[in-house]
C-alpha cells in the first residue's frame, strides 16, 4: 500500500535523506538559533500556571493530601522534566519523525489501546494509565502524535516530484485520525475527540488539499453524528450536555452550575482582580475542577480583566509564532507540524476559555500550559519543541532545497 510504495521509492531516489545527513552535521552550530519569543512566552505561561495552580489548590486539598503545596510541587517537577525533554528533542531532527511516522502512529494506537485495557476511570472516563510513580493520559499525547502523522501523510512524499495532496493521502489521513478518535471515544473522552477533529480539519484546510475534501470530511462527520443519534450510538443526553452552555441549569449537581460559578468567579474579578491567592470563588471550591479545566476562572478572579486579557494575548503570540515559523519552515512537513501545533493551542485555548465564560460548550479539556496535569504540559512542550526544531532547521531550505528542486 502507500507505506510499501513509499519505502521502495525511498530507496531509489533518497535525496531528502541525503539532505538530512547534512542537516545533522550542521546541527550543533544551529542549536541556539531558535525563537526566543516563543520560548519566553511558553515559559511565562507555564510559570504563571504554577502560581495559579498553587492558588487554586492550597486551600482545597484532595483527600489524603496534607501539604498545601502538593500540587504545586508536582506540577513544578513535571515542568522541569518537560523543559528537559523540550531541550533534548531539539537535538533530534524533526524530519526523522516524517520518515518514521508509521512508528509514531503505531505507538499512538498501542497507547490508546492499552489505556482501554489497563486504564482507570476519572469522572466516568477511562483515560489514565497508572505507572506507579505517576499516571499518564495517552489522549493528550495522541494529539501531538496525530499532528505528526497527519503532517507526514499530507506533505510531500519522497515518491512525489511535486507536493500534491491526492485523494489517497486524504483518505490515509482520515483513516489515521478517525482511528485515533474512535479509540478515544471508547474511553469515552468527547473533549479530546472534538479537539483532534477540529485540528485535523484545519490541517487539511492548509495542506493544500482541495477544499471539497475539507467540506467532505465535515459533512460526513456531521452526517455520522446524526446517524449515530438515530441509531442510538449517541445518546440525547450526551448532546444535551454539550449544549448546556446555551441554557445553564441552576442545580448544583448540573454542569450548568459549574458555568454559573465560573462566570461569578471571573466576573467578580472585575478590572484588576482580587489578587493572587485571594479569590474566594476558586479557593473555596465553588468552581469545580478549578485546577484543571476551569483554571482560567482562577486567573479571571484573581487577576481581573487585565490578567485575563494579557493571558489571552500571550496565547495569541504563541500561536502567531507557530504560524510564522510554519511559513518559514524548510519543508512542507515542518510547515504542517508547526501549523498543527498552532491549531492545537488555538483550538484548546478558544474552547477552554470560551467554556469558562459561557461562549462554548463545557467539554472537559485542559488549558495548554496552565491547567494542572502532567500529560497536558509535557505533550504541549513536545509540540513546542517540534516547532522550535522546525525553526532551527529552517535555513536548510534556502541552501539546499532550492538547489535540490533545480537539480530535479
Amino acid at each position, binding site marked *: 500500500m502507500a507505506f510499501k510504495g513509499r519505502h521502495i521509492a525511498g530507496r531509489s531516489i533518497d535525496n531528502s535523506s541525503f539532505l538530512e545527513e547534512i542537516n545533522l552535521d550542521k546541527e550543533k552550530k544551529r542549536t541556539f538559533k531558535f525563537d526566543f519569543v516563543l520560548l519566553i512566552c511558553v515559559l511565562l505561561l507555564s510559570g504563571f500556571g504554577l502560581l495559579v495552580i498553587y492558588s487554586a489548590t492550597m486551600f482545597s486539598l484532595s483527600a489524603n493530601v496534607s501539604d498545601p503545596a502538593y500540587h504545586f510541587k508536582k506540577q513544578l517537577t513535571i515542568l522541569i522534566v518537560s523543559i528537559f525533554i523540550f531541550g533534548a528533542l531539539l537535538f533530534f531532527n524533526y524530519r526523522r519523525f516524517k520518515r518514521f511516522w508509521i512508528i509514531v502512529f503505531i505507538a499512538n494506537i498501542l497507547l490508546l489501546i492499552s489505556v482501554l485495557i489497563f486504564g482507570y476511570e476519572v469522572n466516568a472516563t477511562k483515560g489514565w494509565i497508572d505507572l506507579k510513580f505517576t499516571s499518564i493520559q495517552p489522549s493528550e499525547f495522541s494529539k501531538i502524535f496525530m499532528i505528526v502523522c497527519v503532517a507526514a501523510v499530507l506533505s510531500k512524499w519522497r515518491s512525489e516530484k511535486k*507536493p500534491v495532496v491526492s485523494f489517497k493521502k486524504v483518505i490515509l489521513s482520515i483513516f489515521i485520525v478517525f482511528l485515533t478518535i474512535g479509540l478515544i471515544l471508547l474511553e469515552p473522552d468527547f473533549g479530546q475527540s472534538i479537539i483532534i477533529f477540529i485540528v485535523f480539519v484545519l490541517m487539511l484546510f492548509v495542506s493544500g488539499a482541495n477544499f471539497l475534501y475539507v467540506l467532505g470530511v465535515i459533512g460526513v462527520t456531521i452526517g455520522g453524528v446524526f446517524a449515530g443519534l438515530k441509531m442510538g450510538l449517541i445518546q440525547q443526553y450526551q448532546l444535551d450536555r454539550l449544549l448546556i452552555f446555551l441554557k445553564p441549569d441552576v442545580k448544583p449537581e448540573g454542569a450548568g452550575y459549574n458555568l454559573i460559578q465560573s462566570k461569578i468567579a471571573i*466576573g467578580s474579578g472585575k478590572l484588576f482582580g482580587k489578587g493572587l491567592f485571594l479569590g474566594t*470563588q476558586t479557593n*473555596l471550591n465553588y468552581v469545580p475542577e478549578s485546577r484543571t479545566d476551569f483554571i482560567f476562572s482562577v486567573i479571571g478572579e484573581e487577576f481581573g*480583566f487585565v490578567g485575563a486579557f494579557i493571558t489571552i494575548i500571550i496565547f*495569541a503570540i504563541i500561536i502567531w509564532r507557530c504560524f510564522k515559523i510554519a511559513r518559514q519552515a524548510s519543508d*512542507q512537513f515542518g510547515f504542517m507540524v508547526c501549523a498543527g501545533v498552532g491549531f492545537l493551542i488555538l483550538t484548546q485555548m478558544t474552547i477552554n476559555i470560551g467554556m469558562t465564560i459561557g*461562549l462554548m460548550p463545557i467539554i472537559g479539556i485542559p488549558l495548554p500550559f496552565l491547567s494542572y496535569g502532567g500529560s497536558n504540559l509535557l505533550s504541549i512542550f513536545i509540540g513546542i519543541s517540534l516547532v522550535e526544531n522546525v525553526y532551527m532547521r529552517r535555513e536548510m531550505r534556502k541552501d539546499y532545497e532550492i538547489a535540490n528542486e533545480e537539480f530535479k
Partner: protein
Amino acid sequence: MNINSNRKLIFISYLVIVVVVLLSLRLYFLQVMSGEIFAQAASENITRTRSTAAPRGNIYDRNGKLLVESVPTIAVAVDPYTVLGREDILTILSKKLKIPYNDLKKKLEEKKTTYIDRVIIKYDIDQETLVYLKENSSNLPGVEVMNIFLRKYNYGYLAAHVLGYTGEITEEKLKMEKYKTGYEGGDQIGLTGIEAQYEDILQGVKGKIIYEVDPLGRPTDIIEQTDYIPGNDIYITIDIELQRFVEETLATQLEQIRETKITNTNEYYRAGGGAAVVMDVKTGEVLAMVSNPTYDPSVFVGGISTTDWNELNKPANRNPLNNRALMGFPPGSVFKIATAYAGLSEEIINNSSSFRCAGTWYGLGSDYPKTCWNKGGHGGLNILGALQNSCDTFFYELGLRLYLKNKNADELLQKYCRILGYGTPTGIDLPNEESGIIPDKTWKKEWFKNDKANSIWFPGDTVNMSIGQGDVLVTPLQMAYSYMAVADRGIQHVPHILKDISEDSGEDLFDYSIGEVKDLSLNQDYLNTIESGLYLVTKQGTAASAFSGFPINEFPVAGKTGTAEFAGRQDYAWFSCYAPIDNPKYVIAIMLEESGGGGRNVAPIARRILEYLFNIESSGIVRSVDSFGD
C-alpha cells in the same frame, strides 16, 4: 509550502485575531461591565444567613393558668442538597439518630425538589448525640444542630380543638401571601385552632445570624447577629377547669349511652361523639367548647408520625380532629324557637292561639300524614304548651301557615332563622367554622340540580323545617348563639375565644372588634312568651325529669330538648338552655350524635354543667329513664 498553504494560514491568523477580540469583549462584559453584579454573587456565595427560632407565645386560660408553653429543644437539621449523595453522612445520621436509612433518604428526597435548604430530621436529641455531632461537625457538612422551641401542652387533651396544634410549615404554605415574609423551611406554625388563628401574634420574630462559610458549608466567621423577639402570650376565654368538667361529663355520658339499648329494640346507641358550648350571655366569651372524641395535641409536637396520623384519620376512630362544635347537624326541636318567633312576629299565632294535636296531622293532605313524636297526641295546646311538650303538630301547622302566607314568596321562616344567626358563621375567632344550612328555594334548586323533580320548594319543606328537620343544619355554637338572643332579649355578642394579649413590645395588637355586640331588635313580648315556654320545658316539660331535684326556683332555667332524625342514622340528641332566667348568665348548647332523646340523654349533662357553674351540690349524672321523649 506552496503559496496556497501560506495564504490559508494567514487567513487563519486573522481568525485568531477575531477569537482574541471575541474572548476579550466577552471578558470585558463579564468583568468590567457586570463585575459588580458578579462580585455581589460571589460574596453571597460565601455568606449564609441562618435564623434562630423565636419561642411562640404562651397560651393561658381566663384565670391565668398556663395551658400551652414553648420549651427549648435541640433539633438536627440537614441541607438535602449537600447530604443526599453522601452515603457516609446518611449512614452516620441514620445510626446516630436512630432513623431507618431509607426513611431518612426518602424524606430528604421529597424535600430536595422544594428548594427548602433546611429540613429538620430529628427533634429533641440527647446529650450524647449532641456532643457527637458537634465534635464531628467537620466531617458532616450540611448537618446543623439547631436550638428550637416546641409546644408543651400542660393540660393534655383538654381543649385540644380550641387550642389547635402546630407543625412544620409546608411548601404550599410557604408560597402563600400570609407566610411570605419571615417564614422559611423548618418553621413551626399554628395549623389549627387558636394556634392558627393568632399565628401572627404568637409567632414572634426570629433572630438572624449572618456568617461566612467554607465551601463545605461549615461556618467560619460570624458577621452579624440579631436576637429573636419572643411571640406574645395570649389569654383565652376558656375556663380550663370548666372545660375539664364538661369534657369529662360529656365523655362519661356518651359511654353510658353506648351501653344502652334503643327502646323496644336490641340495638345499642352508637353515641359516636358530641359537642358542647358554654358561653357567657353578656359577653359572648366561650367558657368551654368541647368536641368528643378528642385527641392529644402533643402527638403533633416535632412532627406527627405516619402511624399516629393514620390513627387519627381512621373512620373507626370517628374523626377526633374535627371540632364538632363548629360543624352543622340537624337540630330537631331545639330549633323550634325560630318557628315560634316567626309565628308570633307574623301574627299567625298569639299567646292564646291553640291547635289540636291528635298525634297525626293531615295539613298537607290526606296522602301526606305527618306524626307528632307523641303518637297519642297532645290534645289542644297553645304556644307555651307546644314548647313545653315539644308538640310537633303545633309547629307543623305553624310552618304550613307561614308557608301559605304570601305562598312562601318571602320565605318567612327562613327570614327569622337568619335573624337569629342560623345559616351563617357566627364569626368566632377559630378557623374552619361551618355556616350550617337554612334551606330555601335557591338552595334547593342548586342542591338538587341533577334531580329536577326535587328541586322545587314544597310546602312540606317548610313544614319539615319548622321542627328543625328537613335539610336544616345548625352548629352547636350557632345554637348557643341563637339562645343567647332569646336570653338577652335580642342582644347577641359574637362568640370569641381571645380574651387578652400580653404585648411585651407595648404595641397594641388586640382586635377590639372581637365580641362585637349585635342588637337584633326583636319584639320583647314575643321573647317573653318563648322564654315562658322554655321555662316550662325544665319545670314540667320534656326536660323536667332531667331537672328533677334541681333548684329550679332559685336558678330558673329556660331550655329546649331536641331529637333530630337523620337519614340512615340514629337520632341526634340536643339540649340548649340558659340560666338564670331573670338575669341570664350562661348559655349552653349540647349535641350528642346518635344518642336518642335529647330530654333523656342530653339535658342531664346541661343540668350537671349548671350545677357546676352555680356551685350546686350534685347527685351525679341522673339519666331519666321514663319514656318522656323528644
